[in-house]
């Protein structure tokens, strides 16, 4: 196995990306995915219960 195979990425992203054009907005698909993930994590942080809350309550 050569070094390239050993250290190469599983997914090769070194090719020109795809872009979303919406009016004057230009957004790469990869940036859109990252922004979507950030929003999803923010919403999850708002609605998911704090870990350990149940055990604390049960311990009261």
């Amino acid at each position: 196995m050569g070094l390239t195979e050993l250290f190469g990425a599983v997914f090769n992203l070194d090719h020109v990306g795809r872009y979303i054009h919406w009016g004057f907005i230009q957004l790469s698909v990869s940036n859109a995915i990252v922004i979507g993930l950030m929003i999803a994590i923010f919403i999850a942080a708002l609605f998911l219960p704090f870990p350990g809350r149940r055990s604390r309550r049960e311990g009261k």
Partner: protein
Amino acid sequence: MAKKAFNPDIDAPEYKGKYSPYDIIKEGTIAVVVVALLTVVLAVLFSSPDEKAVTIKSWSNATPMDFAATAMTELDGSSGTATYGPPYNNAATGQQVGPLTLAKWMGINVNVNTANDFVVAPLSTLADQPALTSALTTFASASSSRRANWEANYSKGLSSGSFSNGVLQVAAANAGPLPEMLGALTAMARSGALDQALVTQKGFYTTDYTKPLLFMADGSFLANKAQVQHLSGDQWGMMNETGSYPGQAWLWLYTMWYQVPPFSTSWGANADALVWAFMMLLTLLLALTPWIPGLRSIPRKVKVYRLIWREHYKNM
């Protein structure tokens, strides 16, 4: 003395409820471990951008006529760098915000004389080329009006010239020593020697790539590559990365102003300074939020905090 009225934006009532234990060391350790694991896994899956560096050698080999035409603009002082102003020279006022000439105030701290730094000085490092040495002597001893005449004639020839058999083919009458100089500079660039000459002007060990970058930025090769990769200023380039990698998404607001009028139209020439000033103003507004009536009430009125601490407010 009259008691001060309670202001829900500034004053906080004394908390008289229960307290819960919170282990910040445990939370912090979990966060560091999760981020470290994510970093390793994402690096294995996606690696990082590995775009081959653009050099003057690659530029002049790919598009020798664009290189020669750009070198000509460096020599006659009409290139983007030569006419930019501070911090490179005093050819223009530079970036300004209204009457505030910010770039001029900072001064010329990266002095670039494009004719000498990009053309004459690199050529003078080439040894054992008597024809070139003679051409450089002729150029140096000519009057500025004579040089301008040669430059105008050679520029005219370059626009219809070509490159074949490793040599510039330019039909330019009365161009003085310029065919010899530009021909030698193109050959020097194609060999890779010009890259080295431009980064070693300050000493043997250097990581200062300002001059080769400015030279390349004046041509169209680098700009075309940036355009393909969506890295130009008018393509939200500040938040993009080469290839299909995600970029600096958090710079969306900064780069957005470059896309909208008047920053993209009538203010375009000073957009760098104006966008910076506007962002500083917005940052100041954010920093002063607690003292700005109306703006400081938004978190209280939006009530996201009641969602986060819903268990607490349920029991109140």
